[in-house]
């Protein structure tokens, strides 16, 4: 075995300090510290082969016995490979080759790593997960490891197998940014031909010039090298415009793609496909650019265009927004209450006085506002917070002083992150949502009360008239919010009062006219499918709903309409006439709130609550709308929600807030939980698992990729050719009895269900009801869905009725089907006719001797044997028991002609058990084992 024990004095202090921080809150002793899933030149194993490797690290200062530890890359089999019975000294490393070369010198696991991405789990015999991670695409000879060792988050790094990790990467990332772009240019700058085209502005924010040769621009992650920069140089602090107009013949720089004003992405990458910079964006307004402020490193915001010039912190939203909201902004906030018993007062006001405010003086980054209203807020978050004073808050600036605002804002929400050990979920989720639909912005706040530290919070923008004015032409429309117990959008009748329990009117309460909202619900529930789109489009922003449903599904934000039916707004936009769906309360995104589902593997389209989610049901059952929805899912997982993108954003935020979270005197989770939850699952309470941000996104993206690329099963269309007909009996026959992974929802409902991992992909389609077995129940689907059609998939598994060899191979199964399927229906007649045709097809005279496994097996009484003879032979069949004793000789020297034959053999008087039949034909013989079960 190989391990290194290398900790000079300074690092001992660091290790001890980390352990002190960890204290008793951490139970992790050994960590997955580094791995390489694509090793071509880095390090060779004892056999001289450049194989995948995994490095473990003992994070403690005591030796750790590794007996009882297991490593696996299979979440369904955590005990795939047992670590050897050895001891890992304190702060030592252990190198394990993931190469299945178990006979080689050294320690070799019996699985390999996938360079395309997968999971790694270190666990104990009792199933306890010690450490785990999921990872995406890996680069050859670049490892991925924790920095600092054992406790830090995972990042790409120079490989240090068996040694301390470094946070260095080979080569430096050039300091060039996608600085601004305009995706809808009506009246702005013109190109060399005088055309108003889309453009992208690059900016060198470094101190030295950058060679652009070897850099690429793209608007799709599927082809990062879509357009290559010419071999030119961009000077320090200089701007460069690339026209995104696909006019490559023009002078100047013209990329071979255009930008979509509906939203997409821009990626700047290098020759090795490393992403230098990227931005995913949502809806773009005409002549309003999206750019960074400050140049080069700031967050993106809508702004007045500054073509090839420094960006301005001004746009349609005004300047002040950047003073309050910004993902990386941390505000100093102090509340001065008139009483020391402020916690008791806030609790009393919330619980007894129906969420009444109490006055406080606010100091916000030095700005003082007298007598603002403060109250606790929240539903489940309030309950989860227990007795802590650090509950979520709402500030209402004009509660006691008319028209008082903080900048332009009347209210802000100040959330305590009670459900999120990582403290980055809301910031990440809202940022992602803003790329798709109008959604709140966030910032962070370090809050004190009466001068004493209260804790670290995240500020979330309130959805009110100020918000609506930012995102819509008019903010005078009705705004509805789902009630605490949720709103399903099911039809409750024409009386608006029937909806008061599920929705709250937040604007225009005095008018209280719900007509249009009720009409939308009525249409959604009661208009036939063939007219639903045309009927719904005038009154519902369907595209926005599809985006939100895709968003909910990709990041498993299930405390939403998709799952719990909670946490959303609907806004009746007077200008468009459409009702817009808006997201809310994303603190339990990224898999925290499960809704009873598997947050890593939830089907994109087969959702088991659709009977009570008409929006989901109606939109996803429409082929065209479902395609749009899946397109948004695809866009997300390859763009703004890609594992690498989320990991990068999350890591930056996590590092930004780390000191504040650790210093929080009322933090809910341990420092170790905060540190770990960026990349790893954290287990809180009994049986409650909070997925790690990056590990969750990696796994979820992988699963979604699989769902997107492996198509869907329409129950009954077993050959996936787009129609349920008699030919669909053929895969049932070929794969009869095969087993595989069962689907979450086992139903014949005519809706696409995701295929799962089977050893034979085609067999998963034959499993029509998704129960994990191809059997007679799957024939039910052919009847129920007879002649139903769907958009044909690119991947079909059609079996030709002329495939004689295949039917011969599965003759027993087809004969069983033929003898079992009947009925007077057209479908039954067609099935029987096809089976007759299949069974009548005789193969040509076999050229070789062959004996098939008996069928059925196990059997009770009698069973069939099929065999082939290349020439006439005398055949003897002998049956022996497990001790070799002859128990029957049903055929002795019986003559059979060349061809295919079947025999029936029986063991009427034998006891249950294992037997062998031996068939001898001339110089040929074959023996098979069979099982008699009484």
């Amino acid at each position, binding site marked *: 075995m190989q391990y290194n024990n290398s900790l000079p004095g300074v690092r001992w202090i660091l290790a001890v300090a980390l352990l002190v921080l960890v204290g008793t809150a951490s139970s992790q002793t050994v960590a997955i510290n580094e791995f390489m899933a694509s090793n071509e030149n880095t390090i060779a194993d004892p056999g001289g082969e450049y194989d995948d490797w995994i490095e473990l690290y003992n994070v403690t200062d005591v030796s750790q016995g590794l007996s009882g530890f297991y490593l696996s890359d299979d979440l369904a089999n955590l005990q795939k490979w047992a670590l050897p019975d050895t001891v890992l000294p304190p702060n030592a490393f252990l190198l394990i080759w993931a190469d299945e070369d178990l006979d080689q010198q050294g320690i070799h696991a019996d699985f390999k790593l996938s360079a395309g991405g997968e999971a790694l789990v270190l666990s104990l015999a009792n199933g306890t997960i010690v450490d785990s991670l999921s990872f995406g695409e890996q680069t050859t000879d670049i490892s991925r490891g924790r920095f600092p060792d054992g406790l830090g988050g995972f990042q790409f790094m120079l490989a240090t197998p068996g040694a301390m990790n470094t946070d260095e990467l080979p080569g430096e990332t050039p300091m060039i940014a996608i600085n601004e772009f305009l995706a809808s240019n009506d009246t702005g700058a013109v190109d060399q031909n005088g055309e108003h085209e889309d453009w992208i502005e690059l900016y060198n924010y470094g101190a030295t010039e950058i060679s652009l040769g070897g850099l690429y621009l793209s608007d799709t992650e599927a082809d990062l090298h879509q357009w290559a920069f010419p071999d030119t140089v961009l000077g320090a602090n200089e701007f460069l415009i690339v026209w995104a107009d696909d006019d490559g013949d023009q002078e100047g720089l013209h990329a071979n793609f255009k930008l979509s004003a509906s939203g997409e992405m821009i990626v700047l990458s290098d020759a090795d496909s490393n992403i230098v910079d990227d931005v995913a964006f949502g809806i773009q307004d005409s002549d309003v650019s999206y750019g960074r402020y400050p140049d080069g490193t700031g967050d993106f915001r809508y702004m007045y265009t500054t073509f090839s010039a420094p960006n301005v912190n001004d746009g349609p939203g005004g300047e002040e927004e950047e003073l309050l909201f910004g993902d990386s902004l941390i505000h100093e906030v102090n509340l001065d209450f008139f009483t020391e018993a402020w916690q008791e007062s806030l609790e009393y006001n919330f619980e007894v006085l129906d969420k009444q405010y109490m006055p406080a003086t606010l100091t916000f980054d030095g700005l003082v506002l007298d007598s603002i209203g403060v109250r606790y807020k929240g539903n489940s978050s309030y309950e989860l917070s227990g007795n802590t004073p650090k509950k979520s808050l709402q500030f209402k600036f004009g509660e006691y002083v008319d028209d008082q605002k903080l900048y332009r804002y009347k209210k802000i929400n100040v959330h305590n992150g009670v459900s999120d050990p990582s403290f980055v979920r809301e910031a990440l989720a809202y940022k992602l949502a803003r790329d798709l639909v109008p959604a709140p912005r966030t910032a962070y706040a370090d809050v004190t009360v009466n001068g004493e530290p209260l804790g670290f919070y995240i500020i979330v923008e309130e959805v009110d008239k100020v918000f609506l004015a930012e995102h819509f032409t008019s903010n005078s429309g009705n705004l509805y919010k789902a009630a605490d117990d949720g709103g399903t959008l099911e039809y409750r009748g024409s009386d608006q009062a029937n909806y008061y329990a599920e929705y709250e009117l937040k604007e225009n309460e005095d008018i209280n006219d719900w007509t249009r909202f009720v009409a939308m619900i009525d249409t959604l529930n009661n208009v036939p499918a063939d007219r639903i789109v045309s009927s719904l489009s005038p009154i519902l922003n369907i595209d926005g709903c599809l985006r939100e449903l895709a968003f909910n599904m990709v990041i498993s934000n299930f405390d939403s309409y998709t799952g719990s039916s909670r946490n959303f707004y609907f806004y009746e936009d007077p200008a468009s006439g459409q009702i817009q769906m808006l997201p809310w309360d994303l603190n339990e995104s990224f898999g925290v709130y499960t809704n009873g589902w598997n947050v890593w593997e939830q089907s994109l389209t087969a959702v088991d609550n659709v009977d009570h989610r008409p929006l989901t049901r109606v939109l996803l059952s429409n082929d065209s709308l479902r395609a749009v929805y899946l397109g948004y899912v695809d866009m997300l997982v390859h763009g703004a929600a890609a594992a690498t993108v989320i990991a990068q954003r999350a890591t930056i935020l996590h590092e930004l807030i780390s000191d504040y979270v650790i210093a929080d005197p009322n933090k809910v989770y341990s420092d170790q939980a905060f540190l770990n939850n960026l990349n790893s699952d954290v287990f809180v309470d009994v049986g409650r698992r909070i997925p790690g941000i990056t590990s969750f996104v990696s796994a979820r993206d992988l699963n979604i990729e699989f769902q997107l690329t492996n198509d869907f099963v329409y129950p009954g269309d077993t050959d996936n050719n787009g129609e349920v007909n008699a030919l669909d009996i053929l895969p049932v026959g070929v794969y009869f009895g095969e087993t595989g992974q069962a689907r979450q929802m086992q139903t014949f409902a005519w809706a696409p269900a995701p295929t799962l991992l089977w050893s034979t992909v085609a067999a998963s389609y034959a499993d029509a*009801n998704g129960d994990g077995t191809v059997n007679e129940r799957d024939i039910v689907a052919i009847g129920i869905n007879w002649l139903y059609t769907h958009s044909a998939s690119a991947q079909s598994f059609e079996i030709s009725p002329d495939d004689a060899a295949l039917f011969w191979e599965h003759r027993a199964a087809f004969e069983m089907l033929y003898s079992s399927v009947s*009925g007077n*229906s*057209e*479908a039954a007649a067609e099935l029987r006719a096809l089976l007759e045709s299949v069974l009548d097809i005789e193969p040509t005279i076999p050229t070789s001797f062959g004996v098939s496994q008996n069928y059925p097996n196990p059997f*009770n009484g009698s069973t069939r044997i099929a065999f082939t003879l290349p020439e006439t032979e005398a055949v003897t069949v002998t049956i022996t028991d497990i001790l070799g004793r002859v128990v029957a000789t049903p055929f002795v020297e019986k003559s059979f002609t060349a061809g295919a034959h079947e025999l029936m053999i029986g063991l009427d008087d034998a006891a249950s058990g294992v037997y062998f039949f031996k068939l001898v034909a001339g110089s040929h013989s074959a023996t098979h084992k069979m099982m008699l079960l009484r």
Partner: protein
Amino acid sequence: MKQIHFTTTLLMLFVLGIAACDKDDPSTPIDMAARVMLTPAEATIGMSEAATLELRAEYIEDSVFAVSLEVEYDPLILRFGGYSTTDAAVFGSEAVEFVHDDTSVHIAFSRINTEASIYPNGLICVLVFEPVAVGQSVVSAPLASAVFYDRAGRPLAMDGLETVQSVVTVH
């Protein structure tokens, strides 16, 4: 005397009436649990005869489009001899039927989607069992195997579903 005789007669009739009512006491609840049953509950056959059992459903309140279940029997006593349906069978003529016997009888009936759903209360099919040896065999449909499906192909939750077995004696 006539009056006494008349009164006595009335009393006797009254008593008889009371006695008769006791036999059909309306206070005795009727068992209405949904069930899948094999009838008759008992059948006795000789070695040269076959037992004909009806697979029936009763008191099912859900509309159904398909059913899948198994029928178990003792292969030392009986062998499966086939099945049949009649015009009165609840799944009707527009159905795909699958009946296969290996270690038990696997049954899956599905109506075609152009047809309406049914309330499957009545005869599903007739099962024939032939004698193998003298003895007694329970013929039953295990509850765990019985799944009814609605028109959309979704399994129906049938709380309280019971199965009723038949006992076939071969003499």
